[in-house]
């Protein structure tokens, strides 16, 4: 896990010490990166030139360095980390099966996956029911 904003690492330190550590025991366990100037943000398409800050961008990067998922939000709404964890687990499952299995809509860890192939064409309705949603 890497967090990143345009603030300096000095400000990150004070923020962690004075506020975040009051919400997370011992402060946040992951590195907080400083991207003053927004170069990294520009690379990832999340730097807002007018505001001079990075918007809420979230990228899941696999062990090969490939971006598997991204989510970009304007600042006033926070993220939903259980959904991020669900996506990571789904991509890990797909990777573990070397792409032989896929995770359908509403998939949760432990739930049934799909095995894409000629036999499944037109038959998804047999293995995936609307009741699995929600």
């Amino acid at each position, binding site marked *: *896990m*890497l967090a990143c904003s345009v603030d300096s690492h000095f400000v990150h330190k004070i923020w962690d010490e004075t506020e975040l550590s009051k919400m997370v025991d011992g402060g946040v366990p992951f590195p907080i990166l*400083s991207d003053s100037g927004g*170069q990294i943000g520009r690379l990832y398409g999340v730097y807002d030139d007018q505001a001079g800050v990075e918007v809420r961008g979230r*990228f899941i*990067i696999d062990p090969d360095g490939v971006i598997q998922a991204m989510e970009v939000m304007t600042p006033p709404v926070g993220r939903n980390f259980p959904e991020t964890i669900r996506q990571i687990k789904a991509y890990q499952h797909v990777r573990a099966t070397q792409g032989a299995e896929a995770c359908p809509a509403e998939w949760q860890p432990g739930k049934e996956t799909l095995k894409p192939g000629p036999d499944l064409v037109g038959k998804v309705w047999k293995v995936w029911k609307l009741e699995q949603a929600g």
Partner: protein
Amino acid sequence: MAERPGCARPGTVVPAADTETSATSTDSPQQEVPGMSVMVGRPAPDFEAPAYHKGSFTNIKLSDNFGKWTLLCFYPGDFTFV
């Protein structure tokens, strides 16, 4: 310059297209052009940046994490509310 601690704020390092090649850019026809937006299924652009981590200052290079899953989160700013 980057070696000297003190008041200077070390800058971010984004590899230039011709001076540095990352492991991820070599096997992709996609070129890393600043301002270019990223795409799922494509290599994550590499970078190196100063960071704060558990009481210390350190330098983080994205590609040092490859081999593991990485979650990269941008946010608007320290001391903002959400």
